[in-house]
Every structure is written in structure tokens, then in C-alpha cells.
């Protein structure tokens, strides 16, 4: 049986990749994908712990997160489409009108 530490290590790697993707990339779609990556890193950690502790609550939380992620994808893609309509670009650095 694979130790839970491996799952967690994979989860952390996935989360860091996602976070870096959010921080570094400018393409809104890529950022979006990176966010999904971070959510799924969390899902992986939940599932790993659920199995490790033999508890169902982790599994259930994963369902909630997948639901939220689906909703988020729906709204996020709609936003990106609208931004693209106005800016003709999905480069997030272009969207800086709230600059102080």
C-alpha cells in the first residue's frame, strides 16, 4: 500500500505548480487551469486523508469542492468571455483599471 505521504507530496507539488501558474502566467485560461490544479491538489489531499483515516467526510468534501469548481468554471469562463469581448484579449495584465 502506498503511504499517505506520497499522496500528500503529490498534492503539495500539484498545489505549488497551480499557485505558481496563477502567479506567473498571464493568460486567463492558463490561470484558470492552474486554479483547477490547486483545487484538485486539495481534493487529492482530502481523498488521501479520507482513506488514511477511513473517514467519509473527506470524500464528501471532495464532492462539494468538485461542485464548487464546476460552478466556478461556469462563472469564470463567462467572465473571461466578457473580458475578451471588451478588451479583445485575455491577458490579465491588461485588466488593471483598479490600479491605485
Amino acid at each position, binding site marked *: 500500500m502506498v503511504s499517505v505521504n506520497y499522496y500528500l507530496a503529490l498534492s503539495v507539488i500539484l498545489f505549488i505548480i497551480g499557485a505558481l501558474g*496563477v502567479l506567473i502566467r*498571464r493568460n486567463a485560461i492558463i*490561470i484558470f487551469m492552474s486554479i483547477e490544479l490547486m483545487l484538485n491538489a486539495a481534493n487529492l489531499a482530502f481523498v488521501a486523508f479520507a482513506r488514511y483515516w477511513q473517514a467519509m467526510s473527506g470524500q464528501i468534501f471532495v464532492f462539494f469542492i468538485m461542485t464548487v469548481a464546476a460552478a466556478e468554471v461556469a462563472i469564470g469562463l463567462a467572465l473571461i468571455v466578457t473580458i475578451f469581448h471588451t478588451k479583445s484579449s485575455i491577458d*490579465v495584465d491588461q*485588466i*488593471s*483599471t*483598479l*490600479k*491605485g
Partner: protein
Amino acid sequence: MLLNAANTGGFFYLVPFVVLFPVIGLLINMFVGGRLGEKAIGAIACLGSGLAFGVAVLLGLALVGKPDGLVVPYLDWITIGTLQLQWAFRVDTLSVTMMLVVGGVGTLIHIYAVGYMHDDVRHNGDPGRFRRFFVYFNLFIAAMMILVSASNYMMLFIGWEGVGLCSYLLIGFWYEKGKDGIGNALAGKKAFIANRIGDLGFLIAAFLMFKYFQPLAPNGVFSFDFDSVASLAKQVPPSGILAITLFLLLGVTGKSAQLPLYVWLPDAMAGPTPVSALIHAATMVTAGVYLVARSHAIYSLVPMAQNTVAIVGGVTALFAGTIALAQFDIKKVLAYSTISQLGFMVAAVGMGAFTAGMFHLVMHAFFKALLFLSAGSVIQGIERGEHHVEQDPNLRKRMKHEMHFDAQDMRNMGGLRTKMKVTFWVYLVGALALSGIIPLAGFWSKDEILTEASALNPAVYWLLLLAAFLTALYMGRQILMVFFGESRSEPVAHATESPAIMTVPLVILAGLSVVGGFINFPSVNTFTHWLANTFSAVAEGTAGGEAAPAGFNFVIATVSTILAVGGLLLAWYLYMNRVHEMRRLPQNQRADDPLRPILGPVFTLLENKYWVDEFYGYIVVKPYEWLSGFLADKVDWNFWHDFFHDTILVGGFNGATRLLSGPIDLGFIDGISNFLADGFKELAGQMRKIQSGFVRNYALSILIGVICIIGYLIIRLG
């Protein structure tokens, strides 16, 4: 007598009406007099005074039956702690004597004034003041009646101040006239201020009286009542009594025009002549004499005060007599004569010869009122002559060199004997009565004073004897200058006699001046016995009252008669014979008075009244004005206004305001808010840099935040 003496006691309760009748008269004239004619105004005023006289007569009749008199309480006046003042009228022989004089002489002068003021208001060009004159006149009678009928010193003081006020109002009656258009007003002011100094003495005496008498009074309640003062006086330390009497004397010198406060009376002649007769000769100025007589119980206790009073009176009598000798204004001569005669009275009451003083007071009221009113008649006769001359173009040409004609200057007069016959005769009677020619009024009263003085105070006797000689001399001089010789100016040559309304009171007063003296005929002494009811009633068992009455002294009577006749003869020699001799000299070498070449510089000294006014001006008025100027210019203006107000207050306020608005408000208060604002602005400037607008940056900060929180939680919990 129709009235039964026993039934007349009820008349005592009429006494408030001696005050109320004149008050009613003046109220009527004040409120409805504007719609009445001069005759009605005059009638109301005369009635007010006359009814008061009638009440005084009834009181006199009542006193015949019950000579002790009565104190009639009228109302409670002031009650403060241990001070309880009543408004109560005192009816005794002394007060009723004064009421009779004030009412009787006052009424005659009222009647005369109706005629006199009719012409006077027209001559001075304001007929509207006729009513005002009689309102003041009735007010004077009321105040004088309060003064003489008072039962305590405070009520007396009200009358005392009231007559002073009337005197002031009437001296300045023609306030816009006189020297430089302000002379009369200044004369009124001078009288008021001189009297005020005297009144201060009176007030201090009253305070001292309260201090010394109140602790002794039964139940500790002091009322200033004459009776209680008299009965308690013996328990008071003599030094206290001495202080009280001497401060009262200061009041006396003010009101009765004695040295050193006499200077106001000659100037008071600025008032219309009836005022001079009533207030400044017959009644008001005798108030001081009355006050000393009224206070006989306390004066008798301190011989030193008595001597002081007597010396003041004697010196004043002589001093004023010498000045009268060299005056040219007909009324000024009479004014100084009045001062001199008041000196006689004050000397008499000072020596303890209260009856003699009061006797002379009454006689003097008759003949001096007569003389003043006659002088008024002379002045108006000349004014009528002046008017006649002005209407006649031929005569007016001769007037040219007399542009400023003075109707009161005796140098312009002469020869009026034939033009104003009635006035001449009554004037002669008055002058002889004043000179002390037997058997006229002045002889008896002056002789009584001289007799008393020879026994009681020889120094004063010699002063008074000399003054009596001077009296005859200056009255002879005046008669001769005014009525004899030739008229020395055109208006006088055309003078005419006054109407009957003026001459009738003159004749009555002349009659009184002739027969008045017999009320105290030696060896009968009706008047002495009459007043003895007052003076000895208090004297019994308490203070020693009246000095033993001196009998008729033949030697003294002869000496004084010789001196009086000698004075008149000397006047005749100087003003009839010498004047004729002087006529022969050329106009420019001719002296205006035969005494001038004889007395030389002394005459100038007398003519200028010893320069007392100038001396007072130099000693008192100048320093006072300097002090006022100093206080006004330096202390008030420069110090208080410029320095204290402008520099300290305004400057300090401006400085404080500047400090508050500048450093404090702008610097500190605004500084705090500006600092806060600037600080937040600066902070915001720093903070806005964080708002880069790049989503990645926000995401990074969220990440860092999350890491920090989680790190913290791990460290804390782990």
C-alpha cells in the same frame, strides 16, 4: 377773643396742612396752570402760601391755651434695625414762630411777586416762566415748612435740602442770562456747591449723633427726635457733643451764609428780587439760626462750641458789614447786609441768647424782606424808565454812551425820592429799622443781642457794636445814593412808581418793621416768655437751656443809638456834602464814591470783597480744577483710556487673539488636523503602490497572507 383758649387744642392736628397747602398750590399750578392766566396762577400760589399762614395762626392760638405744644405723628418713615424715623410735626412756640414768619412774610412776598414777575418775565422776554416761578415759590414754602415743623433732625434735613434745591432753581431762574450768558447758572451752581459743603457737615453731625446717642436710647431704638436728643445729651461724652455741634456749625455756615461759606449769598442775587427777599433774606438763610436754636439743648452743654459759633457770627457780622460799605449794586449791598445781620443772629444763638437771636430773626425777616422788595421796586421803576427812554428818539441819543446800562448800579441812580414816593418811604423805614433807630423793629432786637453780648461775650460785643455802626453807615449811603441828589442817568430820571400789588405788601411790611419790635418790649418781654415755653421746657431737668435773659441796659441802648445815628450822619456828610464838593472837580478826576479818595486802597480792597472769591478760586477752585483736569486728561484719558483701555485691554485682547488665532489655532489646532491629513495622505500614497492593478500581485499577497496565517497557526498550535 371768639375762640375759647381751652378748645383750641384740636388745632394742633391741622399742622400737616402748613406743608400740604403749598404742595396743593404747586400741584395745581404745575398740572393745570398752563391753561390758567397769570392772575389765576398768582392767586393759587398766594392762596397756597396764605392758607399755610392761616394754619400757622391757628396753631399759634392753640399754643396760647396750651403752651407746651405737641408732637403730631403723621406717618412712619424709615425703620431699619435700631433706626426708627417718623414723619412727625412738632408744634411748639419756636416752630410756630418760624411758621408764622415763613407763612406771613412768604405770603406778602408771593403777592408782591405776582406784580413783580408780571413785568420781570416780559422784561426778560419769556412770559411762560411766570407759572414756573410760582411752582418753585410754593415748593420753597412747603420745604421751609417741613424744615421748621420737623420733629427730628432727619425730617429737618429733608426740608433743609428742599430749600437748598429751591434756592438753586430760583437763583438760576434766568439761567441763560447774566455774565457771558452763563453768569446766573454759575451763581446757582456756586450756591448749591457751597451749601453742599455745609450739608456734608450736617450729615456727619447726624452720623455722629447716631453713633453716640443710639446706644443710650431706650430699647436701643434711636429716632433723631429733638426731645430724645435733648434728654440723652447729658450722658454723651462732651467730646462727642462737641464734634456734633461743630459739624452742625459747618451746616449752619453753609445755609446761613457765615464765614467761611458765605460767598454764595452775594452771587445768589442773580435770582429775581422776590427770591432774594424770601429765600436769601427772610427765611431760608435763617434756617441755620433756627437749627442752632432748635439744638440749644446740646449747644448749651459745650461752651467751646458756643464760643465758636458766637465768634463766627461776630466776625461775619463785621466782615460782611465792611464789604457792604463799598458795593455799588443795590442788591449786593443788601446781600452783604443780610450776611452781616445773620452774623448777629448766629452770634446771639451761639452765646446762648436764643430768644434774642430768634427775635432778631423775625424782625430781620420783616425789614430785610421790605428792603429787598423795595429794591426790586426801584429796579423795575428804572427798567420802566429805560424802556421809556428807548421809545423816545431824542432821549435815546443821550443814552449812547450808556450802552450797557445797569439798572442795579447805584452810581446810575439818585433823586428817586420824588419819582417813587411810596418806595422811598418804605425803603427809608426799612433802612432805619435795619440801622437800629429807636423805636423801629431793628432797634429792639439788635439792642437785645448787644445787651446779651455785653454780659456773655465782650469780644463778640465789640465786633457787633462796630458792625452795627457800619450797618447804619452803609444803609445811609445806600438811601442817599439811590433816593437823594440828582438822577445820574436818563432811565433813572424817567423812573416811575410800581403798581399797587407791589406797593401794598411793601406798606404792610413797613408797618411790621415799625411796630414789630414791640412784641418783645423790654420789661414786658412777651416774645421771651412765648419762646421760654420751648427753651425752658427742655431745660428743665435736662440740659441747661436759655441763658438768663438780660434786662434792658440803658447805657448799651444809648451807645448803640449814638453809633447808629452817628453812622447815618456820617453817611449824610459823605454823600450829601462831599458829593457837592466833588461836583466842582472836572469829570475825569471825580471819584464815583466819596469814600474812595478817603479810604484809598482800603476802598479798593472792600470793593473787591477782600478778594475772597479770588482767594477761594486760587486756593480751592484752581487746585480742584487742576485736579479735575489731571484726573480727566491724565488719569482718565491718558492712563485709563489710552494706557489701560487701549494699550492693556485692547492691546492685550488683540495680542491674545493674535496668539490664539495664529500659533494656537492655525499652528496647533490646524496643525493636528493637517498633520493627520498629511499623514494619511502620505500613508495612502505609500499604500496605493500596493494597488498595482495586476491580479497576480493580489493573488501573491493573498498567498503570502495565507502562508503567514497558516505558519502562525502551525507555530502556535504545533
